[in-house]
């Protein structure tokens, strides 16, 4: 909760309404071994808004990794050029391993199908800003719950707040059992659905995810489920009037463009929230604020 509170204080600087020099003279290495738009750019925006500088790469091409260097050696080298590292890597547990080898702080910007903790924090921040509270909500996680790392991290976090969770997904993309078990161990109330229309009417937060083509080994399996759930204004008529729609973006078929102009559409505000949340994290892990 402290991170969210610091993030709230960062909003004016994140918007550019105030200037911050908290990270002046500091360098963040941004190591993105997988494609990213929002995470990478919002990390860079956050560091720049704090008065710091950013070095790094947006894809592994042209780096020593292509010459066969280990991730461990890359981290040991890069850490001598910077004050903290933000990284995304396709292998699960890669950020944890990097943190073992680095003396400087490492922030996980997504590790394969594993976790995406900064997305999780900005999701919590968005729910709090939009709804005034986190735990006292019925939250539906919708779409690819098997391969979607953002929903794994978010489910764990919402379970800690004792939120009421509904997992809406086709059978083959339902939430992995270890995530479900751990959420239940933390006291979350969980229900499962395959039918979006049937589950939507008493939901406060609809958290929609893209069914990610790149996570499917078999393209035929992807075709069977792509576009299975779409949020449109017809569907929203059956939802609570104050319900919100969130999405980690990018979206493809999951939310119709017509939803963008409704008060329920929180996903672009959610994307902005990545900046103050990452500003808070950077400042806290760098020790420039406590």
């Amino acid at each position, binding site marked *: 909760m402290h991170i969210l509170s610091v993030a709230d204080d960062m909003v004016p600087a994140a918007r550019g309404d105030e200037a911050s020099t908290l990270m002046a003279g500091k360098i963040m290495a941004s190591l993105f071994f997988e494609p990213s738009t929002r995470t990478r750019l919002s990390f860079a925006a956050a560091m720049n808004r704090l008065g710091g500088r950013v070095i790094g790469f947006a894809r592994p091409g042209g780096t020593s990794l292509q010459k066969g260097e*280990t*991730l461990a050696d890359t981290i040991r080298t890069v850490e001598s050029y910077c004050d903290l590292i933000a990284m995304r890597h396709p*292998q*699960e*547990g890669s950020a*944890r*391993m990097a943190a*073992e080898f680095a003396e400087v702080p490492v922030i996980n910007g997504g590790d*394969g199908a*594993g976790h995406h903790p900064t997305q999780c924090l900005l999701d919590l921040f968005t729910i709090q800003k939009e709804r005034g509270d986190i735990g006292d909500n019925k939250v539906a996680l919708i779409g690819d719950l098997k391969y979607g790392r953002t929903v794994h991290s978010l489910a764990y976090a919402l379970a800690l707040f004792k939120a009421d969770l509904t997992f809406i997904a086709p059978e083959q993309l339902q939430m992995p059992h270890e995530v479900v078990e751990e959420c239940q161990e933390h006291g979350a109330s969980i229900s499962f659905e395959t039918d979006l229309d049937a589950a939507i009417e008493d939901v406060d937060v609809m958290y929609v995810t893209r069914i990610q083509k790149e996570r499917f080994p078999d393209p035929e399996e992807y075709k069977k489920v792509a576009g299975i759930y779409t949020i449109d204004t017809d569907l929203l008529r059956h939802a609570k009037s104050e319900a919100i729609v969130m999405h980690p973006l990018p979206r493809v078929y999951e939310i119709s463009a017509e939803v963008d102009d409704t008060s329920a559409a929180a996903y672009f505000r959610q994307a902005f929230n990545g900046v103050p949340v990452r500003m808070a994290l950077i400042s806290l892990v760098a020790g420039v604020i406590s």
Partner: protein
Amino acid sequence: MQPIKNGTVIDHITPGCALKVLKILRIPGDADGGSIISVVMHVKGDSGKKDIVKIENRELKAHEVDKIALIAPNATINIIRDYEVRDKHRVSVPDDIVGIVECANPSCISNASNEPIQPRFSVKSRDPLRIKCFYCEREIEDISAGII
């Protein structure tokens, strides 16, 4: 099976697991100094069948042997001196399991062939035994199949 004069007897091993126990303990290996190692499998005991391993002239330390609890949770370690049992204890799974079991998740960084790390697990529950990868945090379903 004859009694040994000095060494270690690992008793009450889950039937059929004696060879995996030796594999976990890296026996035979350099540390044995050519010790005689006896293995019997599917011996009838008081509470059903079991395997037994005897290692002559080498006393295994508790921290060396506890890791076999991953596949033989009821095993007992007997230290023998001059044909007498001088120390006896039941194995227990260590909190940190390093370099014994590999992660079943092919996308886990611990399975990257060139990274200088060993697979590492923490204990999630002791009864039933459930262990979780330190790196990717996935639980391993078949521990026995993951023994390196």
